[in-house]
């Protein structure tokens, strides 16, 4: 589903050159649940951003869902992200001025479809994460775990093939974290969604199919 070949990412300033990712090659199969671990600054999030087409590698090639996206235009990348990828972030990234339902509808605004369809899909996604009774709430009225569930609903509303989760349980206590993890496992098991998750938590990582460890931008396991 995702094939990274010899990916390198270098951040350059006038005086400093930082090698964030150093020649990583990775194959992630369809329906796989992969976790990436490593100490802070080892390049986990950078690697996830490259997989999510939010950042460009300095070197190497990326194939996602059998498409070589290396030469995609901004418009093609946006469409690809919208249709194939779902994102979950540690700090949720919900828009506080929009109700839960409107937050979940966001990815659907960038594709064709009626308002009624959007509403139905968003309601369905919220039901999947057990938040049907919170659709009119604003994010600030929800707990951390509920906010992350909204973010998951937003990630799955467009029925993407891949979900990229950047420390989805990082801001939550263990009970809430387990709840979120259960939702992700169910999505992977029931819907066959490929999930790549960056985490610091060994327990969470061991719940996934495969664990990749990074150190100083290189894959060590």
């Amino acid at each position, binding site marked *: 589903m995702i094939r990274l070949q010899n990916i390198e990412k270098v951040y350059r300033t006038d005086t400093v050159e930082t090698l964030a990712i150093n020649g990583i090659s990775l194959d992630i199969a369809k329906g796989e649940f992969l976790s990436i671990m490593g100490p802070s600054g080892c390049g986990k999030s*950078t690697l996830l951003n490259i997989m999510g087409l939010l950042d460009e590698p300095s070197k190497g090639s990326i194939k996602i869902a059998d498409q070589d996206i290396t030469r995609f235009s901004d418009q093609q990348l*946006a469409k690809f992200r919208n249709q194939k990828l779902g994102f979950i*972030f540690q700090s949720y990234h919900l828009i506080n001025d*929009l109700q839960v339902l409107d937050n979940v509808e*966001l990815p659907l*605004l960038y594709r064709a479809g009626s308002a009624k369809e959007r509403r139905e899909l968003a309601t369905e996604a919220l039901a999947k994460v057990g938040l049907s009774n919170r659709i009119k709430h604003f994010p600030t009225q929800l707990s951390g775990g509920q906010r992350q569930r909204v973010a998951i609903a937003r990630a799955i509303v467009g029925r993407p093939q891949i979900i990229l989760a950047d420390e989805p349980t990082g801001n939550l206590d263990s009970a809430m974290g387990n709840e979120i993890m259960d939702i992700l496992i169910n999505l992977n098991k029931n819907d066959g969604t490929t999930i790549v998750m960056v985490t610091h938590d060994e327990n969470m990582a061991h719940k996934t199919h495969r664990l990749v460890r990074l150190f100083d931008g290189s894959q060590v396991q």
Partner: protein
Amino acid sequence: MFKHLFKLIWNKRKQNFLFLSEILVSFMVIFAVFSLLVFYYLNYIKPNGIEYEKVWSIQYSNPLKTSNVDSLETFYENVRRTIKALPQVQELSFSVSNYPYSNSHSTTGFTYKGKELSPIDNYMIEDDYHKVLGMRLLSGRWFNKEDKIGKKRNVVINSTLKQAMFGDAEAVGAVVGADNEKETWKVIGVVADVKASGDFLPAGKGFYKRLDSGAFGWIGTILIKVSPDADAAFESRLHKLLARTIQNSNLEIQHLEDMRDSTNEDTIIPMIICITVAGFLIINVALGLFGVLWYNISQRRGEIGLRRALGATGSSVSFQLVSESLMLATLSIIVGSFFALQFPLLNVFNVPTAVYIIALLLSIAFIYLLVIFCSLYPGKQAAAIHPAIALHEE
């Protein structure tokens, strides 16, 4: 997307209050300025109603001690013949002081079928007045010698008064009342409007009465139409001739062309000051909008990064920000238009409705252009935000 954006700005209405207020105040100021400009422009494009070139006014003070009408008439007939004898003088008419561009007004009221109209400019003139000024007769006739001996008091009205008093009906032959119906006047003609207060102001309602011989005791203006070859040397000769003819009088010769320029300046200078002040205000508003939008973007980097991650292109992010600004502007414009529409509805300042409507449309277009102009660059900057960096910052 429209509904989504509306929801977003509505939910953020408190944060957007400053932006909304700024646009509302600017809209009202722009509306006022445009109302003024449109009013002046619509008047400007209307014909003057007179040919002011080579028309001179001679102001004099009556030096005669006698109040005998016949003596006065004889004296001023002599003055008339003396001036008319000059080959450069083509036409001549005595007049009261409120001739075009004189900044002098004499007004009264008329009644017709119970309808009272005032103020109406009251011009007292002679039979050749319309020839001196090249006035255009629309219907009926101008005054002639018969009016001097006739028993009925006749009046010539202008087009604006005709429209206000008679509408599309025939005015010639109608009898109108004046001075609480104590006097009656018969309308014998309708002339084209004369913009006596300058090119930028409306003609207003006006009528012309024939001067009778008794008026020579108090009037002090002679209007003459001179030939194209009448130059400064001729003016000097004329002044000397008049000084000899009307001895012990204060004499002043003015050109209507100069008087028109001076009258127009009285309108143009405040207009320029007004535009300049409004211009500075607009520059301030534009800078303010720019700042507010810039600040908004810096506050919303995370949201912009998120939208990019969820499928928005750079251009759709830019479009969203410009659209949000336009929607906010629309809210202010709706409120502003409500206030602006009260002006034509309540007939404020007695200005034609068309002036306010045109000014309103121009103000709306101007505000939208201003908002687009001020939001394009911040929108472009927003489009350039790198999603990975923006999401990481959050």
